[in-house]
């Protein structure tokens, strides 16, 4: 059985099971495709992400595609590893869980209009120590960063890890959050663990339409969208999670 990792926009129960499976088979190879999980074989089925190899980022240059070909997982992994270790990233950089190294947000080709040539990748990273986002232009052929741009304002969509952390902060909070009382009113039990709900989290920046939350934009904040196992959405518009300070911001 291949290792399968359900990421947290699906039920956390599944993810917990997957994590166990992952522990049992860490020697899987790249491009493992479990036929059961192949798209379209069963309508409505989840399509899981799987760990590539042992999950380590490739440090050796993989086979490179044409300039405008979509990135392979190996190319993406290689680009992340080069970008994260670049000298322009502060030595004390941390991710959303406080661990060393920046948070990876996304990677893709530079825009075609930017008229780059060769196999280039833009890797978006976030350093929680300095609350700074980085766009790293990586030259895969040369194996190095050719341009590093930083900003304290850019807030790309959250990573799956950031969504997990945001959900845990919301559940642990002692603040009166509408969705928690709504959950209890309608489900008859209190919400005490992320695996009771499904969720996604969007990055959130203050746009003057709320009375509070001015810090979001320079701080990294996330807005949760939470639903019950039955697919019923809970009202989560009254707060956002400040991931930089690990706290709840009531936006009204």
């Amino acid at each position, binding site marked *: 059985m291949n290792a399968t990792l359900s990421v947290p926009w699906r039920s956390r129960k599944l993810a917990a099971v997957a994590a166990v499976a992952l522990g049992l088979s860490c020697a899987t190879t790249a491009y493992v495709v479990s036929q059961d999980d192949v798209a379209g074989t069963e309508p409505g089925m989840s399509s899981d992400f799987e760990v590539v190899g042992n999950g380590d980022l490739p440090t050796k240059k993989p086979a490179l595609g044409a300039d405008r070909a979509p990135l392979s997982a190996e190319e993406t992994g290689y680009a992340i590893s080069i970008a994260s270790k670049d000298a322009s990233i502060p030595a004390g950089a941390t991710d959303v869980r406080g661990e060393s190294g920046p948070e990876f947000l996304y990677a893709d080709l530079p825009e075609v209009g930017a008229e780059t040539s060769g196999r280039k990748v833009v890797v978006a990273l976030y350093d929680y120590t300095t609350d700074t986002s980085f766009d790293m232009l990586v030259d895969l052929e040369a194996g190095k960063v050719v341009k590093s741009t930083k900003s304290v304002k850019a807030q790309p969509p959250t990573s799956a890890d950031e969504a997990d952390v945001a959900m845990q902060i919301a559940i642990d909070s002692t603040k009166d959050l509408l969705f928690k009382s709504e959950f209890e009113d309608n489900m008859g039990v209190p919400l005490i663990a992320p695996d009771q709900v499904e969720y*996604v989290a969007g990055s959130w920046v203050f746009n003057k339409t709320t009375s509070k939350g001015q810090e979001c934009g320079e701080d990294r904040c996330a807005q949760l969208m939470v639903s019950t196992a039955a697919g019923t959405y809970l009202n989560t518009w009254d707060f956002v999670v400040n991931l930089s300070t690990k706290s709840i911001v009531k936006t009204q």
Partner: protein
Amino acid sequence: MKKGVGMRKKSLARLTAALAAPALLTGGVVAQVATASPAQAADSPLACDASLIEKKLENGAEWRMCARIHPVKGLILEQIEFKPATGDYEYSGFKRIIDQLNIAQLNVPYDTGHVQYDDITSYGFGKQYLQEQGPEVCKGEALPVEQSFTYSGRLVERTIPGICVQEDPTGIMTHAQETQIGGGTLYVDHGTGLAVSSISKISWYEYQQRVVFDDHGQIEVGLGATGDIAPAWASTNPNSFFHNNEKTGWPLSGPSQVTSGGSTQTIQSYAASHWHNAIFKVDFGIDKAERQVVEQYDFSSPGAGTRAPIIERQKTVMDAAFSSVAGVDHDELSWWRVMNPASKNFDGHARSYEIVNQNYANKTIPYTTPLVSFTNYRACEEYASNNLNAGCPGQNVLDYVANDNHQLTDPVAWINVGFHHTDKDEDQSPMPIHWQKFQLVPRDFFAQKPTIKDARKCINGPFSSVNAVTKPCTPENTAAPKITDKNDPTAAVVPAVGKTLTVSNGTWRSAAQSLTYAYTWFRNGEAVATGQDYTLTEADNNSVITAKVTASATGFPSGTVETAAVTFGTPPATEDPTDEPTDEPTDEPTDEPVVAVSSTTAVKVAAKVKTGKAFPVTVTVKSAKPVTGKVTVKFNGKSKSVTLVSGKGTVKFTAPKKLATYNVVASYAGTDTVKKSSKTVKVKVVR
């Protein structure tokens, strides 16, 4: 209809990966290493391997582009190029239209005022939000999409069918009856389009991005919303998706019971109305232009004509980045086009694409107020609001316009396709898809309809300019002529010496020409007589008789077609009695058309002029043939004309109060023998 996606090149590594997962190739997708056909060799290939889509539609038109799923933007289409069904008749190979096309923001504010979502910059249409194109979803061919990121410090990946490519019927494209009353020939075409789509789920809403490339070169960009309307329990709190404020929603179902603070009450709840503010980014690259021009066209009436209102068109060349707000900068008749002045069709008209955007802009939010904005391409400007690029973070399209002080030559259009959704009973789970769309329509990209038939090629402009030389209309036979017995046309022909045969004209597409017919009779393939009637003689015994009918119009190539044979006795076995009918043109026109030669316009004016002072503008028009007529010079909203003497003319303007750099545009209208030309220079007004 379901031909394989023409050419999909894969590197060996990626091909191996695909083969390891054969079940991925759903809906008839077969990944192949294909070699370029000779026609494609003329074009430089698009180097995008697995994301290459190249498809020949039913009518022979071809599209190619690179399509992939960006983690934030979702479906992103690059290097979009078209080859018309008429092929080299318009131009050789593929021609570029757009460098990049993608959604740049999807802002969803609820009318309750309690929440708004930025589905692109907060969530994105890629990553886990991308939905699978399984066979129950994609009825065409699903392309595999490989996605990867890190999770808990580990690199994870999945490859799912994520982009659907299919050829869909688009209905009747042309229906033209040649005669007023019917009974003439009918030109009817059913069109198809190449639909490239993906689906992304952001909580309750599920969006289909669907771009249709039709067989006439038109592009329709659509965003469909399905899934579910915002679900919630009924609430007495106005800050809720099912609230109690009639004004900001619509009642779905009857009253419901609401319990809060221990007490229960019955209320009618209202599902919150909301906007879907979608802004698309279109980076134009008309024929890979070095310089493109954006024009706005407005229409107004100066008053009544003799029998109908007069409507006049006004062109404005948009020199700088701009945002256009309905009712302020344009009205409902206005439109824009992006033109490559250096790329001309065979009529000498510059190739362009017109933006057709019949949608509403949400004027309650500043950056969604303009219906369209244009800026010069700048790599850091990726999203219409909350820009994510660290080079110009947090900015929106209004910032981009304000910060752009260059002449508009490398245009990116930010096309705002708003939709205000007042929920209704029928929108309940699952919600039927609702669409917001705009079109990009070729305007003079082709000299004629890009599917034009031979029989209509001469029709180009008014009949007085029917082009018999380079675009001849050859009469096309649609029903063959027939030989009958002259005295008894309804009876079967029984050949006998002395019997008179007659031949009908058959039916021809005359292409608006008045045709005359000529008839030639053949005995065993040898011409023996002319005229519509033919009387059989002794010599015709034991032979096959046929007739050829030639349809002609003065000045045009003729069409000739042969009847079925009439057999008289026992013809010699060696002869082949049925020559293939020929519809080859039989006479080659020799008239040379009058060809206008090109001209160049040069403008001499001081680089700096003093405010309030008059200054001269001297225009010189040069051409291989004598230059006559007038030149018009525009400056600061004023327009002056002067008749050229030896190709030269001078006008004077007064420098205005506002200290700025102005354009001086000189336009020579041309004559029958000399083509028009124009020149724009800058003049700076100083103190």
